[in-house]
């Protein structure tokens, strides 16, 4: 049994009216039409999904973008139901990584039901799928229960990846990539060179004296302490043939 969750920004928006109609027709043709739930300003997405699960829903299909998925990720991964996507509009990086085309073409991918179980990362108890980005990283990473720490010695950006073009989301590991800019040579001949450090890990902590900003699946978080971990293979998601992982 399918439940389709429409994000607020696509409802009543003339730009997506025609596309939504085509999607609904295609879903009916494929025989996978289901109940439609609509997100709204004062409606809690998690409560809506819990109600649908109680009514026997086994697959929740999100119509929207990466922001919509963030709203429902915690409840879907905890309840072990299947997540499907119909990407609409811009900001659909996750759908691209999962090999799901935009708009009406996604209905055929849904119908094929190629389900993969993937890892989900956690940061201070909040879940993320793709990764965490820390621009201008000036803090330290505490790894392996504090047995060793990693600090950048030059200007660096930190990227923690779960699902990315070069990162497998089914291996039970996250990958911390530190992109540093290293000065080489001297005087007027000096130049900056990019280097990339890679640390695979399951648990890691970011510690900073001053508050830092980071972006988990594109959403900003601020603080001085972040505990990052992984929950292996807890999210069941419908993927397309052109997904970036094997």
């Amino acid at each position: 049994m399918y439940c389709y969750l429409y994000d607020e920004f696509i409802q009543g928006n003339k730009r997506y009216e025609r596309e939504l109609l085509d999607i609904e027709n295609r879903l009916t043709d494929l025989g996978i039409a289901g109940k439609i739930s609509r997100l709204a300003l004062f409606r809690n997405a998690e409560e809506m999904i819990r109600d649908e699960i109680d009514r026997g829903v086994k697959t929740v299909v999100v119509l929207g973008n990466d922001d919509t998925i963030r709203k429902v990720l915690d409840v879907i991964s905890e309840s072990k139901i299947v997540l499907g996507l119909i990407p609409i509009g811009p900001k659909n990086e996750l759908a691209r990584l999962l090999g799901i085309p935009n708009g009406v073409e996604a209905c055929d991918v849904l119908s094929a039901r190629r389900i993969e179980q993937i890892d989900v990362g956690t940061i201070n108890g909040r879940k993320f799928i793709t990764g965490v980005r820390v621009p201008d990283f000036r803090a330290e990473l505490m790894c392996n229960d504090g047995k060793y720490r990693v600090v950048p010695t030059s200007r660096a950006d930190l990227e923690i990846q779960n699902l990315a073009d070069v990162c497998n989301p089914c291996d039970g590991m996250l990958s911390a990539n530190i992109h540093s800019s290293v000065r080489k040579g001297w005087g007027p001949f000096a130049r900056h060179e990019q280097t990339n450090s890679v640390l695979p890990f399951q648990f890691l902590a970011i510690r900073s004296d001053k508050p830092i900003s980071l972006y988990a699946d594109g959403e900003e978080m601020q603080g001085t302490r972040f505990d990052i971990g992984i929950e292996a293979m807890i999210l069941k998601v419908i993927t397309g043939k052109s997904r970036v992982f094997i």
Partner: protein
Amino acid sequence: MFRAKPEQSMTQQSSNETIIAQGVKVEGDFHSQGDVVIDGEVSGSIETTQALIIGESARIKADVIAKNAVVAGEVKGNIRASDRLELLATSVVEGDVETANLSIASGARVNGKITMGEVEKAE
């Protein structure tokens, strides 16, 4: 009918390979179950059950334990490689070396005791 399958990304990195590049410093007891490449700075200890490559720009102040090791940079500490140790021409080792097979290139500097024979493996 015979259309080629869409190309799958084969560039996904081996999940256990660790790279410590220039611009990064590691302090403490670093343990790994996979291959390790070091071009940055490490102080403390390094232990891996697989291969270890210490690049030319690496500065290590640590005891090193690995299955196989290739050293091109500077190591201040003891090195124990259970299978094979290769010291390249640019390498500088200040510490004792213990390995089953040893290769030292012309130009490499070793200040320490070299012991060869059966070596206990890293855990």
